[in-house]
């Protein structure tokens, strides 16, 4: 039951982008095409889940053990930065096509606050390892859902007749607001 609440909560009710405001930069920056949005979601999911597991272990067996919890921010960000490097190297070898598509956005995952945010939240919520992992996966799915819906909307918007001043980023934000309004309808599901 706990897991169901965590999953529904992280995907719909407390959607990482639309309710918690984490990962807005890729949400706006990589959402012009559905294809790139899907690739970005894959990369973020991978990094987010591994980062949450690794930071959970570090928190439990290093930081708490030695009483240096105040080093949390600095250790977590270093773990994430190294992981992103790793993903970059692996992706380059395994799937050069995908690497080309995501090329410039991969380093951006380091500064994607959703990844660090989820790692800190999982620790703050006092989840155990399994719950943290489930939470990370569900959050990544929520991120992907919001990003892919949004990129679909933006592809359609290219064809729409939008007032001059609102073209591009401004209208994207207004649409994101309406999407957030729609997601508020999930309030009460949990």
């Amino acid at each position, binding site marked *: 039951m706990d897991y169901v609440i965590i999953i529904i*909560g992280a995907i719909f009710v*407390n959607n990482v982008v639309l309710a918690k405001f984490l990962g807005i930069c890729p949400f706006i920056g990589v959402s012009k095409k559905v294809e790139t949005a899907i690739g970005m979601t894959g990369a973020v999911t991978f990094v987010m889940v591994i980062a949450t597991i690794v930071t959970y272990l570090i928190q439990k067996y290093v930081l708490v053990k030695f009483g240096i919890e105040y080093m949390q921010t600095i250790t977590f960000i270093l773990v994430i930065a190294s992981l992103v490097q790793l993903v970059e190297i692996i992706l380059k070898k395994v799937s050069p096509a995908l690497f080309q598509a995501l090329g410039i956005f991969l380093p951006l995952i380091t500064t994607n606050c959703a990844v660090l945010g989820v790692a800190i939240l999982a620790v703050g*919520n*006092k989840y155990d390892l399994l719950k943290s992992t489930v939470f990370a996966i569900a959050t990544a799915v929520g991120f992907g859902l919001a990003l892919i819906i949004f990129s679909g909307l933006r592809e359609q918007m290219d064809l729409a007749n939008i007032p001059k001043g609102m073209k591009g980023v401004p209208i994207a934000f207004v649409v994101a607001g309406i999407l957030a309004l729609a997601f508020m309808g999930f*309030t*009460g599901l*949990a």
Partner: protein
Amino acid sequence: MASKTESTLRNMVLALLIVALVSATSLGYIYELTKGPIEQAKLAKKLAAIQQVVPEFTNNPNADMYKVPSDVEGDTLEMYPAYNNDKLVGTAIKTFSDKGFSKRIYLMVGLLPDGSIKNIQVLEHAETPGLGDKMSKTKSDWSEQFNGKNPTDFSLKVTKDGGKVNAITAATISSRAYADAVERAYKTFMEHGKK
């Protein structure tokens, strides 16, 4: 301008090592400096909450604190007994609920020795601003409905679930969590509390 250090392996390792060392040392120093004030700020907040939820007392509830196990495995509730000239006048209980929207909600619930509710303060919550955060006394007087009620005849469930708690408009979940935390405090107190 001085020439730039070259990217040889030795230089890279050395540079990162020095940066990390300097940063760790300075953080350790700042941590030592702020450790006292952080604890004081936390204690002051706790004492202020205790003072608001129990009748006037003469002892130091923080020093007399005792822990009792709660119905959630591995979690204990902290009981802060308030004595006025050696007579128990109330107990402040730090309680929690996981039924809220995001993270765990912490409340300080003040119970009189017979178990009736004197007053409640929110210690920590992360409920939605404008909706669930009305549980906090600074935002609305919603929580006043608990004061003076005895849970024996005031069922701690929202009206939707058949209880007597009027939920915050459009924030049933937050209200449910609040009531759940209060009920946990009450049950644990009746079972294990010093009376």
